[in-house]
């Protein structure tokens, strides 16, 4: 067994494999399938101050090599997350490493959810700020596609908590490295990427969009080359540890992200195809390292030969 531990600055993990927010619920849904404490970390679905309905249906459309979704961040709100038994209390009780993905519609909402989680942070290993949401105060410009807003939201959250902070970048930008620099500047300890790429699917027969929200986010193998490229660009641009994701289906994909510079990775859409995917990825990373006589997974981080 190779040494799978990774060190992301303030966050130390038993292995580099996380689940991608929104694809693994709150963990409890998969604990019947495997022991989720084996994961490097469980990243839960986005949590906001208030409960939220999410978008109208249909919310998903399957496309070539991927999935388009516009779930719209349905969720229980921070109160229920902190106290409802199937949420954080469950994760605490089994001892999972938990990363809480957070979102808001204004900077104030981001700040507040971070403050609330900070106040009852037992069992929370880190916060992940999802900045791919539209800022309703600023007329809908997404935080994640505007450098100034991105800085503001991260800085606001940073002031509320000493918890390790991950900022999750949107790929729908011209220059991802600029965003990596800005959020690092604003106090983010780590960077995760990529979130979904905005896309659209149309039913030629009905002439309607295939998801009610018209556009949605593309995930899965279709986006892997774009994700790899962005992880590489960010790892070149900043020293901040990077968590890579986007279309990881197996251990080989995970290795590729780590070679490109990711210190950890997350498995998302693959879980819908195979609930055991995250565990298999751990095993396959280990097998790769053993086959190549590599003692520690840290040796492959950024080890791409260019």
């Amino acid at each position, binding site marked *: 067994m190779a040494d799978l531990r990774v060190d992301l600055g303030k966050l130390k993990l038993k292995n580099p494999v996380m689940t991608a927010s929104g*694809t693994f*619920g709150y963990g409890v849904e998969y604990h019947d399938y495997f022991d989720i404490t084996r994961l490097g970390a469980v990243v839960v679905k986005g949590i906001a101050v208030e409960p939220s309905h*999410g978008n109208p*249906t249909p*919310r998903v459309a399957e496309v070539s090599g991927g999935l388009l979704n516009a779930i719209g961040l349905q969720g229980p709100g921070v109160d229920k997350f902190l106290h409802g038994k199937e949420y954080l209390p469950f994760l605490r009780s089994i001892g999972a490493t938990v990363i809480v993905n957070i979102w808001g519609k204004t900077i104030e909402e981001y700040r507040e959810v971070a403050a609330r989680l900070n106040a009852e942070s037992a069992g929370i290993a880190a916060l992940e700020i999802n900045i791919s949401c539209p800022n309703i105060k600023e007329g809908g410009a997404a935080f994640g596609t505007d450098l100034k807003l991105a800085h503001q939201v991260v800085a606001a959250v940073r002031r509320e908590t000493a918890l390790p902070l991950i900022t999750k970048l949107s790929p729908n930008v011209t220059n991802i490295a600029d965003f990596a620099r800005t959020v690092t500047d604003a106090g983010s300890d780590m960077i995760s990427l990529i979130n979904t790429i905005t896309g659209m699917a149309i039913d030629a027969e009905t002439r309607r969009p295939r998801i009610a929200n018209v556009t949605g986010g593309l995930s899965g193998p279709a986006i892997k080359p774009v994700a790899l490229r962005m992880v590489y660009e960010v790892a070149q641009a900043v020293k901040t540890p990077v968590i890579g994701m986007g279309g990881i289906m197996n251990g080989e994909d995970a290795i590729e992200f780590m070679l490109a510079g990711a210190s950890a990775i997350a498995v998302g859409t693959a*879980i819908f195809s195979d609930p055991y995917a995250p565990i298999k990825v751990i095993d396959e990373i280990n097998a790769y390292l053993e086959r190549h006589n590599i003692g520690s997974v840290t040796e492959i981080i950024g080890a791409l030969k260019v």
Partner: protein
Amino acid sequence: MKIGEIVSNKILQGEYLQVQFYAPEICGIAAPGQFVHVKIARLRDRLLRRPFSICDVSEDGLLTVVYKVVGSGTEVLASLEPGTVCDLLGPLGKPFSLPADHELPIIVAGGYGAAATLLLAKRSPLKGVMLLGARSKEDLILTDVFANAGFTVKTATDDGSCGLHGRVTALLPETLAAHRDQKIKFYGCGPTPMLLALAKILQDKGYHNGELSLDHLMCCGVGACFACVVKVKADNADGWRYARTCKEGPVFRVNEVYLGDNDG
């Protein structure tokens, strides 16, 4: 035999096919109304599993699914030869609760709803009535199987080719009249518009003792992704919330079904 191996795969009737998988563990614990989430071997460019109601289970571990070819996944499924191994997840979802000993089950079904309620019919203590709707005669599946299970089968078709000419819900009044003195438990499974219509009739008439199986396009099948939601009544300002049909459903109590604008 390998777990998930296809044992037979053939036309059942009209557009419907029937596939049997070797799945002893799932068969051992499956309850009526639950489903399996199938990863279809060879459908390489599509990631998602396909959900299918469990139609029947046998003691020797054979799980039956009845399905119709509607797209690429079911097309590939239809082409799989016995011996092909598929990866099945299940049984998933909240099942129907069986009627109590003295309750007469009245099942209202359309489309693959007949397949999704067969196990319920087989396991009901009292044998009741099956109201089955379809577009046309050849789409009325499993009628003999329900009859063999002791159910009285009444049918309705859109084109009048068999049974009542019209909607299946139109069979309700005479059925209710015939069983005026019995305690009835309602079950429904079929296309969403049919189920919403049925829920409205039942809620309006005060027939609260019933369960409907409402489903929607699924991804994870286990409650993790919030893709598969429908609106159910809720104690909040809007009067509804989105419930996950894979985990909180597909079976909901009649009274839970939200009758306002329901995109689900």
